[in-house]
């Protein structure tokens, strides 16, 4: 049986680590012309260039939608008819869907992608295909944190594997608790240095 995984966005941060992490599940990134891949991983990791909401340009907004939605649509339409039965789709995005400073285009695009992936999970369930969204921190947060990148990759590889066979239509937050707004919470602790 094929253990081929298609990795789209191979030139983006996390992709090298994802290719490594797949090996733990006896999976490997396919060369061109993959036969009936068992998983499709679409890497849309987001590098944040913080911009105040009032200053966001139309071009920046459109670019985020192009990257996260229209290109993902193209890739889904290209690969889904070729996937093996019971295949997994994992899309990697950022935690921006929860809202973040200076990240209006990314927030809109990531949240839209979350809704889109939930819809794909519903539509592809009859094929036995699972679809999940992995929401990591912005790539800049891992600049000096190679272990953090590996942990994100391990979670993505796990979602792509049969071990995660019970999970579909979910947004899995891989932000190490940043969603808890710890920095903001510490600001309220007046005894903190």
């Amino acid at each position, binding site marked *: 049986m094929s253990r081929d995984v298609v990795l789209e966005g191979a030139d983006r941060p996390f992709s090298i680590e994802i290719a490594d992490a797949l090996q733990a599940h006896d999976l490997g990134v396919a060369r061109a012309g993959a036969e009936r891949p068992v998983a499709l991983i679409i890497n849309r990791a987001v590098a944040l260039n913080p911009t105040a909401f009032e200053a966001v340009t139309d071009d920046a907004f459109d670019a985020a939608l192009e990257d996260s939605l229209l290109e993902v649509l193209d890739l889904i339409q290209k690969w889904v008819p070729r996937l093996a039965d019971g295949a997994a789709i994992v899309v990697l995005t950022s935690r*921006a869907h929860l809202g973040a400073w200076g990240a209006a285009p990314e927030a809109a695009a990531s949240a839209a992608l979350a809704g889109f992936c939930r*819809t794909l999970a519903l539509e592809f369930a009859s094929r036995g295909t699972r679809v999940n969204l992995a929401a990591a921190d912005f790539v800049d947060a891992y600049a000096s944190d190679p272990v953090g990148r590996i942990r994100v990759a391990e979670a993505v590889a796990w979602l792509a594997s049969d071990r995660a066979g019970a999970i579909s239509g979910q947004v899995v937050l891989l932000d190490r608790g940043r969603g808890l707004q710890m920095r903001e919470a510490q600001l309220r602790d007046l005894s903190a240095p």
Partner: protein
Amino acid sequence: MPSPPLALVTGAARGIGRAIAERLARDGLRVLACDVDAEELAVLAGSRRDDDIGGVVLDSCDRPGVAALFEREGPVNVVVNNAGIASEMIPALELTREAFQRMLAVNLRGTFVVAQEAARRMPAGGRIINIASRGYLGGAGAGHYVASKAGVVGLTRAMAVELRWRGINVNAVAPGMVDTRMLSGFTEATRRSLERREPAGRAADPSAIADIVAFLASPDADQINGQVLLADVGKSLGAPPL
């Protein structure tokens, strides 16, 4: 006496938008009712005895037109981004780029343009309310619509994170099935079948959504920011057991 607060509602010629415009006017606000449909706006204006609702022909995606409107009208205190489209059901594998782009342009980019031009000029105490849809949670055959409305929710959160320091609250309302022209694409049989699946057994009246928007626009909702209010009588909690 200070002049009453000014509200701007998009997609206001009919349906939920019209109900919101009428409700906010009843609450004492002056309302700019914006819509692309001049004829329907004239019908709305003709139905009013007072001049508390002014009709404005506006395409939410037309940035120069939106900016010019805000420049002309001065500070707007409440903005309701309601303009939106639905479409026929299209499975993701058959969805074209063009159909996806059009949906995102009207429902998401239009909301972004109006909200941004509003935020650039909005005084402290302002409110921005974006009309999403229960559909943002996902729905087979509606990937483009779902994505556009989920995007509105994400945009709402990002705006709330930033604008809270200027005293501006940004929230979203996600209605379930509402009795508007958006349902006109369904046959009567399909519509009845859909209504039976609603916890209330029928589509909501647009005024029910307007009530929620009026609350979010009022001082009573000061503490609510960056939230999505699901207004679907609990349908999104899941279907009853068979």
